[in-house]
């Protein structure tokens, strides 16, 4: 003897997992397709992000030390050295694309290096490299020069530092904040996640609610003593689980194809240095979002007489949700305004961007989760009312 809720929940899962084509089509295929698609897209993009093979970076140098000058004059460096008198002027040339990198050496670099012993505990003589990560040429030139200096440094037994920023606060990357700030993941992921979860829900909810109405099987359940609220909640929970698995598959496909999508040009690769707290926060957002999506899709499906009709009703909602997801690409990180976190779907987008940029405050996450749960509860309540309604269930 089991509760009606559990019985309905299990039945929905049994129906889904008993249908191999559904499982493959909803869970396996999305991730696989995305992986394949992005991998192809990635190799096409790679060509845009790499420079010509005979590329010779223009390196502006302030106070070029003699040791390096000799190396350069001997043609040992694959660089074009341009003497620059003033560091500020050089930086402007980097931003203005006249130079690819600016290397600033301290006065009397060679002597300082010769005099320096790492054991002394004093500051090592430091070289500063300024570049512009938004420009592929500059990024590449920076990597080359940094590598060169690194190699040179190790022959000198670690006697100077590159971009060590001992005082803090120095900005070496000269690309403006918008270019570097909005990282690929935090701007695109909210929309992708919403789409993935939505398409997962679209694949199962209309089928389960409008489909059962269409086939008349829901009437068979309605003549049993099962509580209508259990019917509504059991379905929504089971469908959410399935949509979650489908969304997970798509997300996995995306994450696995990121290395192919974004070529590794030095430092640009996405740093996936997120803590368990980040993942927990993301899990909470995804969970409440999928519940809300499934509740919405289920409600619209309950109005429809057929699966087709249900899909027609749901499509506009999907468009709206997609557009809401896109806002993350234009916004500048997560909002700190409280009321924003009460807006369904938009609050999910804000939370996801916030998590990836590390700006999300816990109380805002809690607010978003709580409000989405409230909306879902409201949805379950309305769906229950609809299961009670003869107009909805037995309309002609």
């Amino acid at each position, binding site marked *: 003897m089991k509760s009606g809720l559990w019985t309905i929940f299990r039945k929905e899962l*049994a129906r889904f997992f008993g249908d191999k084509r559904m499982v493959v089509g909803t869970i396996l295929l999305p991730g696989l397709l995305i992986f394949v698609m992005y991998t192809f897209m990635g190799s096409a993009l790679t060509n845009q992000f790499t420079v010509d093979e005979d590329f010779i970076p223009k390196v502006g140098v302030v106070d070029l030390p003699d040791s390096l000058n000799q190396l350069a004059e001997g043609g040992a460096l694959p660089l074009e050295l341009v003497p620059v008198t003033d560091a500020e002027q050089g930086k402007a040339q980097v931003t203005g694309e006249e130079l690819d990198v600016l290397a600033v050496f301290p006065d009397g670099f060679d002597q300082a290096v010769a005099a320096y012993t790492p054991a002394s505990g004093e500051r090592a003589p430091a070289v500063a490299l300024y570049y512009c990560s938004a420009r592929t040429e500059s990024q590449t030139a920076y990597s080359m020069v940094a590598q060169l200096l690194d190699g040179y440094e190790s022959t000198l037994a670690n006697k100077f530092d590159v971009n060590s920023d001992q005082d803090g606060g120095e900005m070496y990357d000269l690309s403006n904040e918008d270019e570097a700030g909005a990282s690929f993941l935090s701007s695109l992921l909210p929309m992708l996640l919403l789409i993935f979860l939505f398409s997962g829900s679209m694949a199962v909810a209309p089928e389960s609610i409008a489909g059962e109405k269409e086939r008349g099987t829901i*009437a068979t359940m309605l*003549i*049993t*003593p099962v509580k209508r609220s259990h019917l509504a909640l059991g379905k929504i929970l089971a469908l959410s689980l399935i949509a979650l698995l489908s969304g997970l598959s798509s997300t996995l496909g995306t994450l696995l194809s990121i290395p192919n999508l974004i070529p590794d040009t030095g430092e640009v690769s996405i740093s996936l240095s997120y803590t368990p707290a980040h993942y927990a926060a993301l899990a909470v957002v995804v969970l409440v979002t999928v519940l809300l999506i499934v509740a919405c899709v289920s409600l619209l499906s309950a109005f429809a007489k057929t699966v087709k009709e249900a899909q027609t009703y749901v499509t506009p909602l999907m468009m709206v949700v997609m557009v809401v997801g896109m806002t993350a690409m234009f916004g500048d990180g997560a909002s700190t305004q409280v009321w924003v976190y009460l807006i369904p779907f938009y609050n999910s987008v804000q939370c996801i961007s916030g998590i990836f940029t590390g700006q999300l405050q816990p109380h805002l996450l809690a607010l978003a989760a709580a409000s989405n749960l409230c909306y879902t509860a409201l949805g379950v309540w309305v769906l229950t009312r609809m299961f009670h309604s003869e107009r909805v269930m037995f309309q002609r």
Partner: protein
Amino acid sequence: MSETILEVQDLCKHFRLSARQQKLTHSPDRVKKAVDHLSFTAQRGEMFGLLGPNGAGKTTTLRMLATLLEPDSGDAIVAGASIRTQPEQVRSRIGFLTSELKLEECFTPNFLFDFFADLHQVPDQIRARRKEELFTRFDIHKFAEVKVANLSTGMKQKLSLVISIVHDPEIVIFDEPTNGLDVITARVVTNFLKDLRAQGKTVILSTHIFSLVESLCDRVGILIDGAMVRCGTLEDVCQGRTLEDTFFALYEERGNTL
């Protein structure tokens, strides 16, 4: 000696027609009175037939008794529970069946039996015995693990019968039991009804087939345009005529033409 198990008190039900429905039915009114002040009773252990032409309001009446539709006014006491105030008790005490009871095609008889037993909260100990008994009686064992989609109409109907009585209800309500069935399946159904009656269950059925009422029912209610025009034992209602003649006499009496 007889005990009233079903008491229908002054039930009314109307439907509001959509513009499309109004056009389809050529009806000048926006509302359709489907059931009009209907009252009748049924005794424990009897088979009661609700006889009427198409559109008389039989399905609407039975759906109200099964708590799927809510009456506009009136009430019915089904096995001690009111359809208005205790719908869940009513549903747990009745079995409701139509000739088109739909079962999900992707499940097997075994799964569906357990599923509906769960929904009816049938205790585990009783369930196993009941499953064995019903599956044997209807010969379901041999296709117990075949998906409904792959069953013949006859097998499906047998399974529907079994599903409707998993919880051993006191009253079985059956809307048009033999509609759309081939002769052999129809026979399975009528035998099922006779069995139920032999076990002392109360059966309420609706039909437009005179012979079905004559061969099965103890009492009959004749329903025309949502109203009960005669109700009683077959002898009382017919008074020596055939049921068919009685029906058409009443039908024309109410101003209907053929």
